[in-house]
């Protein structure tokens, strides 16, 4: 049997990203997001996922891209992270694809490209380039961002 990974392909600012499907709980339309004061700037807020309150991270903000109001195509990819649910806001979700192992390359390291620390690999599918996301790294925000806190 061929080895590889099944991924959810999504886009942020025109770039295609891939999230391993086994950690994806579901993909939902953007619900009303409640802002959380003093939260990390990458966190848009919290949503009500069928009675569960889960935080939503905006990948645009995480990647340092200009903020934009979510459009009709925007989706929240709900990730099962350490037995907790976390939503990831993306511009759109296109499809679920199979990435054969030989098509995945390690990301170019230290070549100055922005955000490469969040990438775990790059999948080449014909002319398409899918950037595999390292969500562990992406969710690592509690220690790095503690500034901007404090009560007025």
């Amino acid at each position, binding site marked *: 049997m061929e080895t590889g990974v099944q991924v959810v392909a999504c886009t942020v600012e025109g770039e295609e990203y891939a999230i391993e499907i086994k950690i994806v709980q579901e993909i939902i339309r953007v619900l*009303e997001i*409640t802002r959380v004061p003093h939260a990390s700037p990458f966190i848009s807020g*919290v949503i009500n996922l069928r009675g569960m309150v889960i935080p939503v991270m905006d990948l645009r903000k995480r990647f340092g891209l200009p903020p934009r109001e979510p459009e009709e195509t925007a989706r929240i990819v709900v990730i099962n992270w350490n037995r907790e649910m976390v939503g990831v806001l993306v511009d759109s979700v296109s499809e679920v694809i199979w990435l054969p192992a030989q098509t995945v390359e390690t990301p170019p390291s230290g070549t100055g490209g922005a955000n490469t620390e969040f990438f775990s690999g790059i999948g080449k599918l014909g002319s398409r380039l899918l950037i595999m996301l390292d969500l562990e790294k992406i969710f690592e925000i509690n220690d790095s961002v503690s500034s901007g806190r404090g009560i007025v």
Partner: protein
Amino acid sequence: MDMSQYRGMFLEEAQEHLQKLNDALLALESSPENRAILDEIFRSAHTLKGMSATMGFNQVAELTHNMENVLHKLRNGELCSASGIVDLLFKCVDSLDSMINDIAGGGEGNLTVGDLLTELKNLHESEGHAGSIPVAVGPEAGSHPDTPIDGAAVGQKIITSIEFNEYEKNLIKQAIDQGYHCYHIVASIDPRCVMKSARAFMIFKNMEAIGEIIKSIPPVQEIEEEKFDTSFQLILISMEPEENVRKGLVSITEVMEPDITVISQVFTSSIPAEGTETQSAESQLLQQGREADKTGKQDSGAADISNREKTKNEPGYVPAKAKASQTVRVDTTKLDNLINLVGELVINKTRIEQIGRVNQVPDLAETLEQMDRITTDLQNVVMKVRMVPIDTVFSRFPRMVRDLAKELGKEIELIIEGKETELDRTVIDEVGDPLVHLLRNAVDHGIEEPEARIAAQKPEQGKVLLSARHEGNNVVIEVEDDGKGLDPEAIRQKAVEKGILDAESAAELSDTEAVRLVLKPGFSTAEKITDISGRGVGMDVVKNKIEALSGSINIESTPGRGTRFKIQLPLTLAIIQALLVLIEEETYAIPLSFIAETTSVMPEQVNKIQDQEVILLRGDVLPLIRLNEVLQVPPSDLPKDEEINIVVVKNGEKRVGLLVDTLIGQQEIVIKPLGKLLGNIPVVAGATILGNGQVSLIIDVAGLF
């Protein structure tokens, strides 16, 4: 045989027995002559031994076995329960506790207890032969007492092979009290007899002519059906002397010489502390009876009655009866799931209510009313299921206080009140540590040394009162001591020394406020650092913990008279009453337990003192907090009231006014955590889902102070 599946059960039961041992030992210390307590201790030790041996935890079994030997001697009066022995037994219980903990952690409970075993064995062997009493050996060791069972010398004996029910016990007791005789008769019929049931019938007839048969073994029915070998037993209550009873039996043909025993002795005797020959024989017999019953039912009838008789004379200690209440043990995660689901239901019900209101469906409103009642009931029941009596926390304190007091050479009585008060499990789990700290403080710093107490004309024995009670939707726990109290002046000085505040502001504080300084981080009033408190964990930790539970702590203290810590906690942390407020476009929930009142003022009534906005509320200065600033709420163009709405919140003695735009109303909310990714957000205590499905944040009021 794989025993692992029974491990959990074993651990739970073992812990229960350890707790019983602890309680009973404490009781024994205050009334060393109480046989009922000794019996209780013996039973627990014995059960533990049996359980652990079955599970293959041999160390536990060995230690309990040796404890049992010593206990056995105590019961026989061969040893007296001097404090030394009780201390040793306490040590054993501690070791057992460590062993059980080790087993809980996956070990085999194999701790080195050689010293303890030696001490126990020495006790067991040394004084054993001293008295004129026959050597009593633990029954498990194989040798049974030599005293003849029929006790010819005494002419009366104790029946232990029969189990009496409550009704029968009462009957016997009453009969004896009224001067009747109670006989235990073993009637035997000639084995060659062909119609045993006929003979049995005659025995019954003759006996009923002179008295009342209150019990037969086997039951009458079976005797009539000839379902007995050659003999059966009867318990007869009669006015007739034993001789007449005997006559009434032997007059029947084919009935052998009956074995008749008067069983009055065991009910009426009061056993002197220094065992005489009969007493010794008796206790051994009692014991035998118990040993014979290995099924786990520890109370053989007679022993039970004798216990009862004796405890009656010594109030204050009632042996914990194994309650046969109908309960089930449920995994707490299942309960948590249940409460989550009920929470969902409540949210959805509110949602349907809104839909009904918008669409004006009258029938729906009626049904919803019904549903509302059911969900409310359901919610109450589920909350009740999660309630645990606070005794589960309190029960470990008597031992702790005793040990501390001993260590410090103080005499302290711990009085516990309201241990049956129920609290939500989530709160129970968290409240133990702060209480330990407060009790340690009371024993260590509160209660004076005995000499100092005498000098202050107080009783030598200090008192610590630990109480719990319900007050509205809260539980109030108080830790009170009659010690030296807190000295506000000393506290002011100390606080200045520690740099918590400057001398000027310290002097301005009222005594009540000064006393609250002990709750500040970095404060410790202890002159000398002892092993007991002052481990670097200050009172501020207690305060933080209580506040994390949405509770509050208050201190009342009178120098020379004592100190009282009053902790107020919500009954539950899962569902609370909250006031919903609007700040710009955002909805927030403020827990009702923190709200003192709401008020509104005109903007010009807001003054400024040193950059702090305040208003005058009934003559008092009330500092204001603008929630929109604290919560970084983006401005909106929603129309606002001309007046400023203020929610006055309290935390202990302190009050602060929170500025909000609109008061929406009071509502029951289900608290949801924000998750790890949003851990440690200041000013936000959690989130809740409103009836419209929107998520609203709960304001951490304590965090605003």
